């Protein structure tokens, strides 16, 4: 039954100094969901950019419906019926949903060449309804949530009657419920005979969706397997190339005295009645659906956006925080969710990034002492095993995982008591995940109190001591992680549970 709709043979691509793809092959059957997996930088993104014609391969051939084709630009791939939904949603916030769906293939009247808005709005509405979305296509894209925007992207793909739809880490920014929705839609597409290429490194995605999987590692083709012949561990092996003995290293910490307490924290229209306590050496997971207000709570604690009611207590003393500066001074650090946008200055050397939060430490009355900066940086990033050649490397040259470590390094230079990590493993490959969990463990051992915001049930269960579940701006439940199950947490997050002990 080898009638492939899309087939690539011996595809290679080289960027200045980087071998991005090396003799990769791939085939895709109509009506299948084919998952491409691999760590960050394995070449997944380059691979699909080649299929969609953003990049042109140096070598290799490509067959569409058995016929060799050459794709010179995104237009060519669109003509063939290949549509892509990118990792970082590539929409136009200022334009209407309709336009976002029809951009590039607007409906225009044959004669006057003018855009036929009514037809487009109508068609857009159908498409959205097909996908079970209810919002009005006339509204501005910028007002939608990430999940809704992705639905729009899919609608866009449908609108061109794509035969091949590529999804690049679509679930990365989605909550579980939204992911469920996406799974439903994707399966529907498959059943309608669309071939779906699904790129991800979330195991769950693979287990729930894929019919087949192709694994890339370090720009190399590793292999293609049917779902049945692949289990979790073997897949990880294939991706990482070595055996991950323990994904969530458990370490024994004796939870000591309370270090930090939040009482009745509230911000109009965003969250309300947020109360929990954090103990020395404890890892507190803060979970819930995306949009439940987890990040907002953290940012209010950290002094980015002021809260309207409630109080913060550090070591039993009431504290007020009006600005991140004060938060750090008092010993509360925050690792923001948006690594590139909020965590790092990409075109800066490592040491400048690391010392940014605590420049005063490395200066006598305002004058910088770069030597000590570099020394300290060296120590700390060696401690965290950040892969770099010198402290003069630009942050941009690091891989996702190492960038994340670098931000942790920033936090460690400041002497903190409480560390808040917002989605610390988002978009980080398996190897780096383990490393980060290790670091968290060590920090806990050293008596830090850690709050970890995460959407991934697996790691919540694997890492945390207690779990705070938020739902629509309020605390739905607090669990002793050891004594709870994924189902309990999910039910709490979706609002179908009453159980859970209080703080």
């Amino acid at each position, binding site marked *: 039954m080898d009638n492939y709709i899309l087939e690539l043979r011996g595809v290679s691509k080289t960027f200045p100094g980087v071998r991005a793809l090396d003799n990769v092959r791939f085939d895709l059957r109509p009506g299948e969901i084919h998952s491409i997996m691999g760590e960050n930088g394995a070449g997944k993104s380059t691979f699909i950019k080649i299929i969609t014609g953003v990049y042109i391969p140096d070598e290799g051939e490509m067959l569409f419906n058995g016929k060799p084709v050459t794709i010179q630009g995104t237009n060519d791939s669109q003509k063939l019926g290949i549509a892509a939904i990118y990792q970082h949603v590539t929409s136009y916030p200022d334009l209407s949903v309709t336009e976002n769906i029809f951009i590039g293939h607007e409906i225009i009247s044959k004669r006057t060449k003018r855009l036929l808005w009514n037809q487009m709005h109508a068609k857009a509405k159908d498409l959205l309804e097909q996908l079970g979305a209810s919002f009005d296509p006339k509204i501005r894209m910028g007002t939608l949530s990430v999940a809704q925007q992705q639905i729009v992207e899919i609608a866009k793909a449908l609108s061109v009657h794509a035969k091949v739809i590529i999804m690049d880490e679509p679930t990365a920014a989605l909550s579980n419920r939204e992911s469920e929705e996406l799974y439903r839609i994707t399966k529907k597409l498959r059943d309608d005979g669309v071939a779906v290429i699904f790129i991800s490194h979330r195991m769950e995605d693979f287990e729930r969706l894929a019919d087949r999987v192709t694994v890339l590692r370090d720009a190399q083709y590793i292999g293609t397997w049917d779902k049945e012949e692949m289990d979790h561990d073997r897949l990880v092996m294939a991706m990482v190339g070595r055996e991950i003995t323990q994904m969530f290293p458990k370490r024994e910490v004796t939870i000591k005295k309370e270090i930090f307490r939040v009482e009745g924290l509230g911000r109009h229209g965003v969250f309300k009645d947020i109360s929990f306590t954090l103990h020395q050496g404890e890892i507190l997971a803060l979970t819930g659906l995306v949009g439940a207000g987890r990040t907002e709570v953290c940012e209010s604690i950290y002094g980015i956006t002021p809260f309207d009611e409630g109080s913060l207590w550090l070591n039993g003393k009431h504290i007020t925080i009006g600005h991140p500066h004060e938060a750090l001074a008092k010993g509360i650090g925050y690792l923001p969710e948006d690594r590139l946008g909020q965590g790092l200055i*990409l075109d800066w050397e490592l*040491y400048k990034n690391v010392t940014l939060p605590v420049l005063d430490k490395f200066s006598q009355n305002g004058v910088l002492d770069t030597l000590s900066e570099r020394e300290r940086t060296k120590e700390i990033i060696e401690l965290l095993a950040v892969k770099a050649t010198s402290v003069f490397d630009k942050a941009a040259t690091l891989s996702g995982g190492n960038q994340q470590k670098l931000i942790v390094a920033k936090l460690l230079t400041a002497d903190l008591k409480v560390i808040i990590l917002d989605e610390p493993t988002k978009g980080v490959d398996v190897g780096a995940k383990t490393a980060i969990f290790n670091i968290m463990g060590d920090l806990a051992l050293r008596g830090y109190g850690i709050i970890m915001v995460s959407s991934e049930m697996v790691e919540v269960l694997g890492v945390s001591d207690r779990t705070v579940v938020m739902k629509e701006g309020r605390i739905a439940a607090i669990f002793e992680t050891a004594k709870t199950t994924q189902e309990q947490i999910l039910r709490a997050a979706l609002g179908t549970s009453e159980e859970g002990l209080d703080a």
Partner: protein
Amino acid sequence: MTERKLLTERGFSFKRFFLQWEWLLVLIFLLIHIINSFLSPYYLNVGTFVRTPMTFLDKSFLVLPMTLVIILGNIDISVGSTVALSSVVMATAYNAGISMPVAMLICLATATFCGLFNGLILVRFKELPAMIVTLATLTLYRGIAYIILEDQASGNFPDWFSFLGWGSVLGIPFMLIIFIICAVAFGFLLHKTTFGRIVYGMGSNKKTCLYSGIRTDKILLWVSILTGLMAGFTALFLTSRMGSTRPNVAQNYELEVIAMVVLGGVSTAGGKGRIGGPILAIFIIGFLSYGLGLVNISAQILLIIIGTLLITSVMVLNMRISGKRKRSGFGSHEVGKNLTR
């Protein structure tokens, strides 16, 4: 886990050293002197190098803070008006019987306040781009100057006041001395202090700075204040050179100043550039126009020359940057994605 030794020292690299934009500027600077001395027999004499700087130094005090402003990723087109206003206020104050030294302080104070006002608006209303805010205050400040002085010119300052703009110490113009002091101060501030480091940081990524606990508002305010203060200096020297003032002095200074900063290799995208470049640019444009003035080239030719100089130099700059790293349309995200790995 890595045994690999991390380098904390960076050996001297000729390539890195000589690939700096400043070298091209130095080259142009020398070239200009050579051309000029060929063109005009009057060029090469002590007088030239003593007097010439005086003809353009007044506005160059604005170049220093503008460099900070642009590195910060902002822009300030209200400086010309600030100069006019503070100068007018000083004159009015003096002619109202206030002693000259005090009047001078008032001048600096006014200018500083103008800067502070810009800063406050920028801080309180982050949604507004600096371009718009300063466009409004540009009109406002000069408007106030007109309200104060109407159609009058105001002057007859004490004689010693003219020393600021005309006097010299041991043959070196007083203005030049002050400028060198200011330049050194700004160079130090920008390249050796935490303040400067943060200015660069904010220019590259304000959010990251905020999340790293930097009081970004404070920095922004201080830069604005500095801009105002230096506008005050310009006002002092300009007024001293003119011996009198009126609401329409210092027209279009903002554009000339920005041009110098950009020619100096500071990217208006923010986060890039050093203080040396703009300072060199001051002298390049200054001596260029002076030398061409000596051969009596008409003003419009000069306009064209400076325009071309500006554009071509920026194009060269772009080439260098895009030569260094794969060109990436917009935003640092993209850079990150390209280079991750």
